[in-house]
């Protein structure tokens, strides 16, 4: 350790200078530079886009009720599923898990008042709703219809909305790149005193790995999108084989981003469930270091596997092998996480809070999706699976079962912190079970249908697949219904939820040591950190926390007296 210098708790540095809270409505809620407000803005807009993209998915499922296509024309269908996927990935999950939870929770967890560059944060946020409006607005001029992957040459022929799609995704891309840089600097330079890397909460580790991916991969996507835009609008040849371009070039550039992007979507969810498992098992997270480092390992490996989406696309056959092997290797660090969480459950005092239920559901469903991912990674097998509903099933097991379950867990977990109100325990449990069951009804049969030969991205299909497609559609309608429970629970909590105490779950990370919701400045004094935050039963490892009426001292172990009942 460095030599001790004179000083008292909360040395007078510019960090200790508390900015006055803005008072106007606009300064407070619209163009706020407070990471907490920006985080909530991300969540609200993201939830809105989630509903839109989800409703598009319901159109997809309604269409597939009959083999000839029940409700819309082929062209409309193609636009609908393309925007469904683009909206879910770029307008829902990525903004929610990075901009949303990252902004709200991470500075608090680090014992800070804000992120490193608050203004940059504000700019990055506002690109996101603008991009979302552009994306969904493309319906007005002819929605992009070649899937979220927009492979040329078909995307070169696509309707005008395809160019709008390029612009929209470019914008969110820049936004998440900026957020990535912002978060990295925040994590490297703005930890509370004493918070060494190995004392950071695991959610912060996850955000760090994600931020690295965001910062690097997203720029490559920007390059690819700009080139597609130029080729569509100004006839600059990059991808058109008739003019010396290469369609496979797009695939390389696209997947160089989009594979890391799937880890952008899952790593923060890993972070969320790590927090939830520790808190609701009342146990230190098992194998803290391995979980932390495996996030980094996954992020690094994530850059070296992109061509596993291109096994049938026409790259040199020998190149398939390194990509296959590296893809398989990703299963190892991911497995380390899964097993460590299992071991965290062992010997716990597990409480079936909705956040915990979603995390447990996540563990089951994501493992399933990860294993089908490994199936896809084997080249000869992928030559069979590729382009079928088997892949669609994999997508939804990891994205819905992984990222969305993680997001739900995060919402139930941090809701009292963010809003200062408790959420109905019963509704949460009902939401979980409805979602979990409906999810499996919807997406499990897709594996089978895909194996039997149903290709993806079709508006019509061979009649023999109707039975399972109908099952899937009915499942998806129940799934939409289960989302209504969630929306209702939110509304109920906001209207008449009980006031939340500072630390309803008896959690130990720093965000729970301030009032709910936290004051504008988060911490009156920046606290110091003595050890990692998961040792239940020990005194809290923080020095310098200011306690007052809004943030009373409370036992660091067990649960606070208020909050939800302890269940048997």
């Amino acid at each position, binding site marked *: 350790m460095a030599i001790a210098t004179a000083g008292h708790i909360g040395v007078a540095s510019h960090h200790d200078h508390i900015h006055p809270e803005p008072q106007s409505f606009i300064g407070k809620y619209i163009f706020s530079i407070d990471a907490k407000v920006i985080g909530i803005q991300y969540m609200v807009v993201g939830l809105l886009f989630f509903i839109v993209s989800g409703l598009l998915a319901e159109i997809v499922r309604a269409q597939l009720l009959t083999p000839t296509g029940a409700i819309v024309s082929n062209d409309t269908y193609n636009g609908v599923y393309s925007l469904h996927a683009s909206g879910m990935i770029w307008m829902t999950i990525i903004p929610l898990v990075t901009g949303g939870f990252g902004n709200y929770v991470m500075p608090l967890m680090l014992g800070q008042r804000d992120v490193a560059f608050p203004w940059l944060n504000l700019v990055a946020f506002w690109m996101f709703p603008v991009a979302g409006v552009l994306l969904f607005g493309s319906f007005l001029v002819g929605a992009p219809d070649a899937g979220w992957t927009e492979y040329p040459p*078909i995307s070169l022929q696509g309707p005008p909305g395809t160019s709008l799609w390029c612009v929209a995704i470019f914008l969110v891309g820049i936004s998440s790149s900026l957020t990535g840089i912002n978060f990295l600097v925040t994590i490297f330079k703005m930890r509370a005193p004493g918070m060494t890397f190995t004392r950071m909460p695991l959610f912060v580790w996850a955000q760090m790995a994600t931020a690295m991916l965001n910062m690097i991969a997203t720029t490559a996507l920007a390059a690819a999108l700009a080139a597609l835009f130029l080729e569509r609008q100004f006839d600059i040849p990059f991808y058109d084989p008739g003019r010396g371009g290469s369609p496979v070039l797009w695939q390389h550039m696209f997947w160089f981003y989009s594979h890391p992007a799937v880890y952008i979507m899952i790593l923060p969810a890993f972070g969320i469930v790590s927090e939830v498992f520790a808190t609701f098992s009342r146990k230190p997270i098992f194998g803290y270091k391995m979980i932390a480092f495996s996030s980094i390992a996954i992020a690094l490996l994530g850059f070296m596997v992109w061509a596993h989406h291109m096994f049938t696309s026409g790259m040199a*056959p020998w190149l398939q092998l390194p990509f296959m092997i590296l893809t398989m290797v990703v299963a190892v660090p991911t497995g380390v996480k899964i097993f460590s969480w299992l071991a965290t459950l062992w010997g716990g005092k597990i409480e079936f809070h909705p956040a915990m239920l979603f995390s447990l559901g996540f563990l089951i469903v994501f493992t399933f999706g990860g294993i089908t991912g490994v199936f896809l990674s084997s080249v*000869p097998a992928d030559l069979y699976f590729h382009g079928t509903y088997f892949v669609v099933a994999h997508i939804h097991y990891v994205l819905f079962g992984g990222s969305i379950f993680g997001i739900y867990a995060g919402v139930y977990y941090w809701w009292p912190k963010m809003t200062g109100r408790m959420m109905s325990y019963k509704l949460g449990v009902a939401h979980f079970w409805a979602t979990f069951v409906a999810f499996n009804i919807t997406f499990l049969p897709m594996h089978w249908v895909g194996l039997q030969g149903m290709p993806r991205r079709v508006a019509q299909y061979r009649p023999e697949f109707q039975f399972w497609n109908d099952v899937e559609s009915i499942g998806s309608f129940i799934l939409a219904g289960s989302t209504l429970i969630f929306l209702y629970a939110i509304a109920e909590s906001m209207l008449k939820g009980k006031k939340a105490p500072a630390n309803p779950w008896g959690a130990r990370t720093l965000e729970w040591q301030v009032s709910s919701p936290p004051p504008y400045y988060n911490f009156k004094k920046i606290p110091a950190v003595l050890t990692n935050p998961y040792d239940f039963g020990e005194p809290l490892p923080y020095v310098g926390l200011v306690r007052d009426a809004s943030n009373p001292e409370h036992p660091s172990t067990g649960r606070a007296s208020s909050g939800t009942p302890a269940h048997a």
Partner: protein
Amino acid sequence: MAQHTAPQQKVDLGPGFWPVTIGLSIFNLIASYFIATTDLATYLPAAAAPAGEIDGLIKFMAVFGNAIFVYVTGFIIYFAIVWRRRASDAPDSIGIQVHDSPKLEIWWTAVPLVLMIALGVLSVKVWANLQSQSGDVLTMESIGHQFKYEFRYPKLKNSIYDEMHVPVGTPVALHVTSADVIHSFWVPQIRVKYDMVPGLVQTIRFTPNKTGTYPVICTEFCGTNHSNMAAKMVIDTPRDFNTWLTKQAQIQASGGGPVALTGGNAATGATLFSAKCASCHNANGGYEAKIVGPGLGKLASDPTHPMLVTGEKPDAAGISHILINGYQGPDKSQGKEGPSAGAMPNKAANALSNTDISNLTAYLLSLSAKKS
């Protein structure tokens, strides 16, 4: 700081740990046995050589995939039940404070790693067989179009559309590529597929081993009628195959060369049209101006009917295609299947020569050009 309360002596793993573990293991053994002994082909029919090997690979993956999933899920449920918080627990009671166990962690890194190495080795082996060049007896080509498959045989002068034949027992090297956008060539019964990429040729190697008719499916999104892009692959006995090939060659010899898609004479076409087609088609109105068949005046420029009733694009290729083959089936002109409008006679029934078709095509296209 951290206080390890887990005693150094024998760790009590909790109630029922070993019975549950043994139970899950027995379940996995039985499941593995069933997976390993089931012939995948009874559920997913196979008709050509790499299918067997790939099925073997899939079965291998299914065995360990199932095992891992069952263990993980089983332990989650079991832990969640035994280690749940009980009503009798004090509000501040906590779990057993263990932090890690290097031994365990090494195990659960090593076991998946070994499994992945095994899968890698097996995959590479199957992959190598897919690449092997030996014994290309029948070499042929398939070219993807929006939205049909073109097939070329070395012994045939002209292409065949939407139906291919291969002889059973003969290794086939099928070169695939595309004329416009990316398509793909997939016959589920062969298992393997490759994309048909414009400007790039890829080769699918297989050896048919079961006669029958199988679907060729496009799995790469290629436009409005991607859903309906399909062809038939017929696996014949060598004799049937030769008969078929000879017959095709004869048809092509008698029918003259291929239909010229450009250079038709619109004026000649116009005369021909009033003679042969005007009974059923109006040359002035759009699609709605029906007589027996749809009005043809705006064939290539009708935004409400962007496609032909066959689902093909209203260009020279698509139009001559319907003139050659005729058409009766669902109306796909709106990018969605509607009811059939009746039967359009084929080339023979309308007594058209290839030149007639070129001329009629030119005439029909000229109609749209004028109106738009």
